[in-house]
């Protein structure tokens, strides 16, 4: 095998070689340290990228399916060349990929479709909620309580330009629809992760509850700020069943339980 450091090299020389080889593995456009076999080094670089691609592909299955393979590979390669994350935990690096797609990738990879970052965020949410160490108690019995209600710590609300929950290989719109997608994802007490496309009323209700807890009886009054007479009637009809449903689904919990989860 090739020798690339002088015999009886000191630790500093060996570590410099390790760093240079790693720089090449992250981005094979960088120079390979002198003396190393280019063919074997290229195989190494390919193995490293393939390994990361399979780790990320498991966390973002729909994104991987929707992107042309060459584009997926390119994003993984660019990410690997740029990322400097120190987390040793594998879900952690998958999360960094979604952040990179939202923040750095658009400038780095202008050909990246516009919906990529939003879809990655949505897929990341699912895994993140499934893994979250937060936990709710056993299912409460009885009707919606009178006391203040809050959102469960296992609820995430998102507004996306793209309908990420409906994207499929044969269903990628050319441009985002006029209306944004208001989406809710949550983990229930049975530990199942669920999602819902929100009606405008439900989105407003949950936005209010994100800001501060309210008693169910007060929500009709505070929502929305100005209420025309027709809307008031609509609220009286639709709000109680919506609240009841969100309570049954473990989206809403009592303020008391929400504080105990913190």
């Amino acid at each position, binding site marked *: 095998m090739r020798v690339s450091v002088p015999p009886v090299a000191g630790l500093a020389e060996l570590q410099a070689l*390790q760093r240079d080889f790693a720089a090449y593995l992250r981005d094979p456009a960088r120079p390979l340290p002198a003396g190393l076999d280019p063919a074997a080094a290229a*195989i190494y670089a390919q193995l490293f990228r393939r390994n990361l691609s399979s780790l990320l592909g498991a966390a973002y299955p729909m994104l991987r399916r929707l992107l042309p393979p060459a584009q997926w590979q390119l994003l993984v390669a660019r990410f690997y060349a740029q990322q400097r994350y120190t*987390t040793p935990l594998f879900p952690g690096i998958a999360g960094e990929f979604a952040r990179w797609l939202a923040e750095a990738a658009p400038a780095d990879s202008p050909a990246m479709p516009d919906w990529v970052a939003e879809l990655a965020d949505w897929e990341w949410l699912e895994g993140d909620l499934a*893994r979250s160490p937060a*936990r709710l108690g056993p299912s409460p019995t009885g009707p919606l309580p009178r006391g203040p209600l809050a959102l469960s710590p296992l609820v995430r609300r998102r507004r996306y330009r793209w309908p990420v929950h409906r994207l499929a290989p044969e269903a990628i719109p050319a441009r985002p629809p006029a209306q944004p997608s208001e989406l809710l994802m949550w983990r229930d007490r049975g530990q199942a992760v669920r999602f819902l496309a929100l009606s405008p009323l439900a989105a407003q209700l949950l936005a209010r509850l994100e800001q501060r807890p309210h008693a169910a009886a007060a929500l009709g009054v505070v929502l929305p700020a100005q209420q025309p007479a027709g809307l008031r009637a609509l609220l009286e009809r639709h709000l109680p069943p919506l609240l009841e449903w969100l309570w049954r689904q473990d989206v809403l919990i009592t303020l008391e339980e929400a504080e105990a989860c913190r």
Partner: protein
Amino acid sequence: MRRLAAATVGVIATPADLATVPAGTGIGLRRALLDELLAQRPALDFLELAPENWIGLGGRFGERLTEIGRHYPLIAHGLSLSLGGPDPLDARFLHQLRTFLDTHGVRSFSDHLAATTDGAQLYDLMPLPFAPAMVRYVADRIRQVQDVLGRRIAIENPSYYLALSDDLTELDFLLEVLEQADCDLLLDVNNVYVNAMNHGYDAEAFIAAIPPGRVRYLHVAGHRPPQQGLRIDTHAEPVAEPVWALLTGAYRRFGPLPTLLERDGNLPPLTALLAELAHCRALQQPGRTQ
């Protein structure tokens, strides 16, 4: 170098049940296997997991892991300590790791004789330069890790496709590290085969040079047939016939050591994996009578 903990020099006293793998055979624990394992409860002597996949995991996965731990002994095989990497050891991670091992009653911890960092995580195994200065460096770090984790660890001989330095042979490098660090070896038989073929040495002679008392357990796995002259350790194929033969030789030398069948890619149904494991056990059993 700043030490991570007040280090005790010399052999660390490790409770035996924190540094041994149960006798018999096992497979790797993957999230996708949790439900199937709990439903079928196949006869497995232990399950091996990568802590980097499981630390901090709540929800259904966390619950299932706890349940799995009630039915099977767990051992851990890490990928991120970067024992030979050019960065300080990650003290925060080591403490997380220790908490995880203690919480789940994990019997054995191992990682690779490799580097996985260059100032940040590489998420893969970079080979170490086989040089005397690296032996001292990595042995010192292994001792620090053993101190923080409160147990003796095992290191795995990784597969490598090029040598960053050949001041020492791979074998001498490995033996020196084991000696200076006073740690155990997780002998990956497939890696011995792959490395021997790729770098032109005698796999049986390599195994014959390893002191029996150092080997904690064995790994066996599949590899990809040669491409551009190199065999690649993929863990995505069934175990190759010459590797079974080498494993049989290892049992002759070391006795019926606990053995883990690794499979990370191209996953077959659990029944196929268990059939392959049964073959492994059949090779291991005659060893027990010798």
